[in-house]
């Protein structure tokens, strides 16, 4: 099979993971900027991180023949400090011209606070002014339902943003329809315990508009599975899906969304 890993935090993973992903058929990996597991002490830390995402990590992936793309932002977990957020957002335009950058992400909300929303609005404005794709993180667990609605309503209210150029990630049974009905793309995250199992993700594919959904592992420094995407493909086979449908879900769908950015190219 061939597939795209549209959301993986590879700076936290080992070269063994790159090898396993390529062996399983991964044709491109996309890495959103996110929380390091601790708060950075200044904007300088983000500058170095953006260099890592746009220079060092693509070279590390290239050693395994895997094209690497990235998204840039200050993540919502560090958005409570508005001064820091402003300093980091001011750094981003300098990096938007780099060859592997797909857009602004993963922005969004974490605990649904006022400052998180202010920073989200600033990121959306940055994307609008620079005609960038947007990748949105939705909150975890008990905060997801409320946060997803707040995010969808805020982005929908900005007439400069084409919903077809926004992917709202980590949807589950209680948020997928709200996202899809608003015209956005949705991401199903295959993550142990706190997000979707393969079986549930396929259930959602069967009940929503599968044309605008992708699956990702969101593998990072926590308990996560870098091969979760091909494992989900295997679960679809077990359920009786043919290779053509599986190729559409795991390769053609993400390629369709990501190809809206001129930097994204992939060889099948």
């Amino acid at each position, binding site marked *: 099979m061939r597939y795209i890993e549209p959301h993986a935090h590879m700076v936290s993973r080992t070269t063994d993971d790159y090898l396993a992903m390529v062996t399983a058929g991964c044709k491109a990996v996309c890495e959103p900027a996110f929380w390091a597991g601790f708060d950075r002490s200044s904007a300088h830390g983000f500058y170095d991180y953006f260099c890592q995402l746009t220079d060092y990590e693509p070279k590390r992936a290239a050693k395994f023949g895997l094209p690497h793309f990235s998204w840039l932002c200050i993540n919502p977990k560090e958005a409570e400090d508005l001064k820091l957020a402003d300093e980091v957002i001011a750094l981003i335009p300098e990096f938007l011209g780099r060859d592997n950058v797909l857009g602004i992400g993963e922005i969004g909300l974490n605990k649904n606070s*006022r400052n998180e929303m202010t920073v989200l609005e600033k990121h959306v404005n940055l994307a609008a002014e620079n005609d960038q794709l947007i990748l949105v993180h939705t909150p975890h*667990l008990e905060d997801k339902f409320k946060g997803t609605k707040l995010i969808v309503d805020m982005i929908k209210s900005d007439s400069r943003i084409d919903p077809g150029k926004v992917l709202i990630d980590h949807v589950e*049974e209680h948020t997928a329809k709200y996202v899809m009905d608003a015209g956005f793309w949705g991401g199903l995250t295959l993550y142990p315990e706190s997000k979707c199992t393969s079986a549930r993700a396929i259930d959602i594919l069967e009940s929503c508009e599968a044309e605008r959904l992708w699956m990702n592992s969101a593998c990072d420094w926590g308990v996560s599975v870098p091969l979760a995407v091909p494992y989900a493909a295997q679960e679809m086979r*077990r359920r009786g899906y043919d290779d053509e449908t599986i190729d559409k879900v795991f390769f053609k769908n993400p390629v369709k969304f990501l190809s809206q950015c001129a930097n994204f190219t992939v060889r099948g």
Partner: protein
Amino acid sequence: MKPNEKQNSVELYFMEVRAKLIDIAAFMDRVERDGLTEDFRYQAFKEAMDALDSDDRAENVLLSLSDRTSELIPAATTKAACGAWPDKPQ
């Protein structure tokens, strides 16, 4: 989206979900033995089980465990989520 050759979902998933059901039962026994039934997360867990009698069970379980308000909070005082809404009205 539908598979070309639809499989029997009971055949596919029964054993896996049977094991999860026994895990849930054992968890409830454990919490009761340990005297922790008043924990708000356990209370939310038990309340969410009512959704198993509804249609759209997965969606309703998730909603039962969710913050259903719509106002932004003044400030984030923690980064983590705990899986149940601590301020849920009883």
